[in-house]
């Protein structure tokens, strides 16, 4: 049971950082860049993705025995599309303003390679429990990425976070940040930072390993 616990924990948190779908696997770029011009949009998109990913992972892992391999991709896509449609209508009914901002990118969740990828690589091969945990981890990681990008872009580009003014009225907004180039550049720089952190970490681990080796040799 303890091991199982460990595995669940691992499955969940893997998606957040180590295998982060955006920063590490570089998946799901389209919604990533298109809707992150404000934090609220990013979060809404993240929630919608979470809903779709968790829902379809649950279904796929539940019915994995009954889905023949030959048509699995089509079946996955139908399942995903169903959940996306549900999310689309729900958002339209509940928060029409946000839906208008996200526009065409809600239906485009279907085309997010990350979701299909998780079905193929994980949900269709694991238990329901793990599949849902993995989906939550991945979607969580996706949301972290969306949010950090959205927050950076909104803070610099509009001087606000979730619409709350941060710097007073004399702040000069960096308009580029909420324009398309700002999306590309910010994500590029975040990835750069991520690379750098990973590199430093690897270096550190190496140094520790080296020190241990020296110690054990000595």
């Amino acid at each position, binding site marked *: 049971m303890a091991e199982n616990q460990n595995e669940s924990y691992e499955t969940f948190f893997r998606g957040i950082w180590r295998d982060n779908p955006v920063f590490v696997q570089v998946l799901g770029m389209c919604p990533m860049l298109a809707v992150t011009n404000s934090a609220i949009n990013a979060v809404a998109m993240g929630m919608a993705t979470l809903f779709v990913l968790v829902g379809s992972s649950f279904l796929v892992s539940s019915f994995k025995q009954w889905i023949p391999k*030959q048509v699995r991709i089509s079946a996955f896509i139908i399942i995903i599309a169903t959940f996306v449609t549900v999310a689309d209508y729900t958002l339209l009914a509940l928060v029409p303003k946000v839906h208008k901002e996200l526009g065409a990118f809600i239906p485009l969740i279907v085309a997010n390679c990350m979701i299909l990828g998780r079905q193929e690589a994980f949900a269709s091969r694991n238990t329901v429990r793990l599949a849902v945990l993995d989906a939550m981890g991945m979607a969580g990681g996706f949301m972290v990425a969306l949010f950090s990008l959205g927050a950076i872009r909104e803070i610099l580009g509009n001087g606000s976070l979730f619409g709350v003014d941060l710097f007073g009225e004399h702040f000069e907004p960096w308009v580029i940040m909420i324009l398309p180039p700002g999306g590309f550049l910010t994500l590029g720089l975040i990835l750069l930072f991520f690379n750098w952190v990973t590199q430093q970490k690897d270096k550190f681990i190496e140094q520790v390993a080296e020190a241990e080796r020296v110690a054990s040799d000595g």
Partner: protein
Amino acid sequence: MSEDKTPDAPAVSSTRLVLTLALAGLISGVAIIGIYEATLPTITINKARELREAVFKVVPGVTRMQKLVYKNGELVSTTETEKDEEPIYGGYDDEGGFIGYAIPGAGPGFQDVIGLLYGYKPDQKLVIGMEILESRETPGLGDKIYKDAEFVANFKELSVEPEIVTVKKGQKSEPNEVDIITGASISSKAVVRIINETHTVWSTRLPQPGSEPLMTESEKTVDEAK
């Protein structure tokens, strides 16, 4: 694309493949129709409210409205939505007296399509209000077409005779002139152009002032309080 994987997949009859997909389709269809039916009322209400708010904004003083379409040479009231129709909206006061039209228009702006709605008083040939519904203009510059109150104020009382023209900021002297926004001339000119173009289309379709379609009873009942 799964050719290389076929060998290790168990042989499955094609009937079963089709059945599986059909079943999946069925389930998804049911789910989709379910959510559609469940959310449709709210969505319809939301949309109607949004539209009404916009119409009320561009035609001040309006409390009731109805959709009008141009059909067979005359402007008639309708509640149905048909494809390829371009509706406008008639605005009325509580007594059903006609106040003005709200006419939607769209056209290319600086970045992307600008969609707007403007209020029009046919007897005075005046634009009496303008609201941008859709735009992706540059934040800080082009978005002034709806963020800059001074610019929007241009459209509170704007003559369309002979046509709306743009002038440099602060030089407005005639009733048909609009002060453009410094640094966002393209966007502000686009707004004016869209109104001009839309007006050219509709000026011939609108009936003589005084003979506007009457407010129909059916609309009145659907109308909710603001």
